[in-house]
């Protein structure tokens, strides 16, 4: 059997989860059944539902945050755990079950072949699967354009949490990761650090159970905040 370059890279799936008790069991099953024997860590962001019971019942590998940090803090916890346990690659898969585990190989391949430092799974490259709501797509499109103006890099699905990061940039993220609405800002941060970012097509599923954390009026606040945050991130440089 030929040894693929980078096949010995240790990979960890980071699963931030806040009140996703209904989705967790299936997600863990999907990961275990994926067959590649990849490690995972679920970050329970101080959920107020019975996520903890579900995790204990399934014998899942998890970290319990004593205080709610939000998705930025939860993902960063996963990255710190990855660095601590000497993983080479960390892949984020959201606890709500929207990220399809079957695309894992597509996301990891460019990292293992050392073609990129960060890979983002994009809903919009092939336009397959759940494409999100119309208003959200406008917002994402705007942010995508803004990021291109600021960094010169064109990423289409800037809010996708389905992304993997390797090596030096994993260590950097473990130290410095944005707290609120982190996905677009994290891209700009990585570019100022000199990372090579690649986008691969994935299909996502619509959220099955539970509630999204961004809706209605908060989306106006979201747009203003993320726009300012992204611009500030670029201005702050390294």
């Amino acid at each position, binding site marked *: 059997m030929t040894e693929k370059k980078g096949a010995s890279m240790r990979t960890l799936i980071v699963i931030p989860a806040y009140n996703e008790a209904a989705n967790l069991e299936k997600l863990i099953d999907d990961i275990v059944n994926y067959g590649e024997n990849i490690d995972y860590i679920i970050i329970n962001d101080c959920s107020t539902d019975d996520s903890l019971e579900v995790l204990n019942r399934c014998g899942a590998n998890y970290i319990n945050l*004593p*205080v709610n940090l939000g998705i930025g803090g939860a993902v960063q916890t996963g990255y710190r755990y990855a660095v601590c346990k000497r993983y080479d690659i960390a892949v984020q898969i959201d606890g709500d079950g929207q990220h399809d585990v079957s695309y894992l190989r597509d996301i990891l391949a460019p990292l293992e072949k050392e073609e990129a430092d960060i890979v983002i799974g994009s809903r919009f490259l092939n336009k397959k699967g759940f494409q999100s709501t119309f208003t959200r797509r406008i917002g994402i499109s705007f942010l995508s354009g803004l990021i291109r103006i600021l960094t010169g890099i064109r990423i289409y699905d800037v809010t996708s949490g389905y992304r993997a990061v390797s090596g030096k940039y994993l260590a950097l993220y473990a130290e410095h990761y944005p*707290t*609120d609405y982190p996905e677009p800002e994290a891209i700009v941060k990585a570019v100022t650090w000199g990372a090579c970012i690649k986008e691969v097509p994935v299909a996502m599923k619509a959220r099955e159970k539970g509630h999204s954390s961004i809706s209605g009026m908060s989306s106006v606040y979201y747009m*203003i*905040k993320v726009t*300012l*945050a992204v611009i*500030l991130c670029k*201005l*702050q440089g390294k």
Partner: protein
Amino acid sequence: MSATLRIVLIVGVLLYFIIVYIMLKKKLLVLKYTLLWLLTGIVMLVLVLFPGLLERTTHLLGIELPINGLFTFGIGFMLIILMALTSIVSKQAEKIRVLTQQLALIEKEIKEKNKGERYK
């Protein structure tokens, strides 16, 4: 409003924005908690650049002098910011309490585990 006063106010607001920008850039301020300050600055700037608007809103409140109107708005915004900060501090106090207790409980657990092993 006299021309001198207008110039002083405009320079003041611009200086304010420069200071806030520098502090943000140096990461002395976190964007999330600075948003209200930015909103205040924008409203102040608009009122100072358009004295007609300031006059109208001032008279709407029953205040005579536009400069007093500006002060009132300034004080109003500061109250909002202070209230927001108090709310943030309250939440943080709660989080610190939880962390302290959790930390103490973990320490206790570790001590008990060590004690158990010593007598094996």
